[in-house]
């Protein structure tokens, strides 16, 4: 297989990568007769402040990969480094946003209390905590919903709360697993723009897993394209579209169409 070594290309791009993935492999039930290889070999780097999307055909082990990147799952072989340190558990400066906000937000806590959870863990005092809650709810453009329970809000608002809670930890990097897959199309556009704004304002690194190619092109600086299971890196595609991006302008540009077409070819031929 003749393909450029993605790790070399990435490290030339920036100084120390925030996230560095080296020959990561993950097999479920390893060593048994039911052994099932989900990820064969994945390597890529994510530079500070970068927005990287991971796409691949469905069943390509995208969620498995994200769980390995976050420290929730231990890879069978290979290494993940976060800010230079090999990943052993979920690092302090990393937050994760899951697809299913209705389950990741604690239904027994109000919005305020959900957002307060990481702050309490970090031992932030009451006054500072309240200020910080207001701050992150404002950052995700949520008004006066602090006293509501998450399930009283719309899907889009719930995912905003989940993002706010992730931001409350003041992470260096945000990992997102299909975060906008469970909301309607209009809300999806709004949330995509929101995450771009948040990322610009707070200068955080984002790795977002999605099956939606258009979404990946719209959001990313670079796109890691996975093959079908067991997944490998098929290609790492640069997205040189200018920022700030707009749903109408960016998506109707010629460059967007070309990238989209290229990615479609990659994803459909690999499955």
């Amino acid at each position: 297989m003749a393909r450029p070594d993605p790790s070399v290309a990435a490290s030339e791009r920036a100084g120390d990568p925030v996230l560095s993935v080296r020959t990561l492999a993950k097999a479920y039930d390893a060593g048994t007769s039911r052994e099932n290889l989900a990820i064969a070999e994945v390597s890529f780097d994510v530079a500070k402040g970068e927005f990287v999307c991971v796409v691949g055909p469905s069943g390509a082990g995208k969620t498995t990969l994200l769980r390995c990147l976050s420290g929730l799952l231990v890879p069978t072989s290979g290494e993940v480094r976060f800010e230079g340190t090999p990943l052993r558990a979920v690092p302090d400066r990393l937050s994760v946003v899951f697809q299913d906000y209705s389950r990741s937000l604690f239904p027994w806590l109000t919005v305020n209390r959900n957002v307060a959870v990481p702050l309490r863990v970090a031992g932030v005092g009451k006054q500072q905590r309240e200020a910080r809650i207001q701050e992150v709810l404002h950052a995700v453009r949520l008004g006066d919903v602090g006293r509501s329970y998450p399930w009283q809000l719309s899907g889009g608002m719930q995912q905003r709360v989940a993002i706010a809670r992730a931001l409350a930890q003041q992470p260096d990097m945000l990992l997102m697993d299909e975060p906008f897959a469970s909301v309607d199309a209009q809300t999806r556009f709004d949330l995509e723009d929101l995450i771009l704004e948040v990322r610009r304002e707070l200068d955080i690194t984002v790795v977002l897993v999605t099956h939606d190619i258009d979404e990946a092109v719209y959001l990313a600086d670079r796109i890691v394209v996975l093959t079908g299971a067991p997944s490998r890196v098929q290609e790492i595609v640069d997205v040189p579209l200018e920022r700030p991006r707009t749903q109408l302008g960016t998506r109707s540009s010629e460059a967007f169409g070309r990238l989209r077409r290229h990615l479609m070819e990659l994803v459909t031929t690999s499955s």
Partner: protein
Amino acid sequence: MGPSSDGVERRWSPIAARLLVVAAVLAGWEYLSASGSLDASSFPSMTDTMAELARQLLSADLWTALWNTVRGWATGLAIGGSLAVLVGTLLGLNRFAYLSVIPVVEFLKTVPVIAILPLAIVVWGATLQMKVFLVAFGVFWPLTIQVIYGVRAVDPVVRDTAVVLRLRGVRRFVGVTLPSAAPFIATGLRVAAAVGLILTIIAELIGGAKGLGLSILTSVNAGPQRLPATYALILVTGVAGVVVTSAFARLERRVLHWHESQRNLAPTGA
């Protein structure tokens, strides 16, 4: 999302309907007695029973008996319940312990509590302790299983979220595990409370410990002229059962107002 005026109406009309049904049943009882369909020597009339009930309600005996029953029931429930939550949690959190112990728990759960009643009487006699033990024992096994299932049923996404938010130890247990298990524990507790009351009455009836059960037995032994008292006391135990069940259902609704099963029932934002 509070109750609208409409909602209030909807809640009141079934209550009125239920009261009507109760009134109809009581009237039917009186009619059957008056018409002679009910044998007066074994089934007193509704009015006689109610008059006796009113008399009993004014006497200290009934209240002492009720207090004895409630005390035995509440103590047994508290002891059996706390032990079940403790043991169930430990077994639920430790897979090895769970696999080792669960067959024993499943077996002891199926032992009818009545079968150990004679043993309890031999050990403690007709005492409060005997009652408390019986209730605690009867409540402990099913509730333990309920707690184990609850603790083990933490949603995988919730579990991942807890890890990502770095919730650990006691904070994680109180903040995530317990609320996740709460619906299971609440159901178990509601059932346990009702079962516990039945066991209390049985311990009094058969074991002879003081309380409503013993009062019923005494009134039966006192002969046919005390029959209205027997029926009045049976009614009191029935009411006690209804009060216990609805109190626990109400508590469940309050504590679990956030849970899917309760969301449309209770006013929110408590």
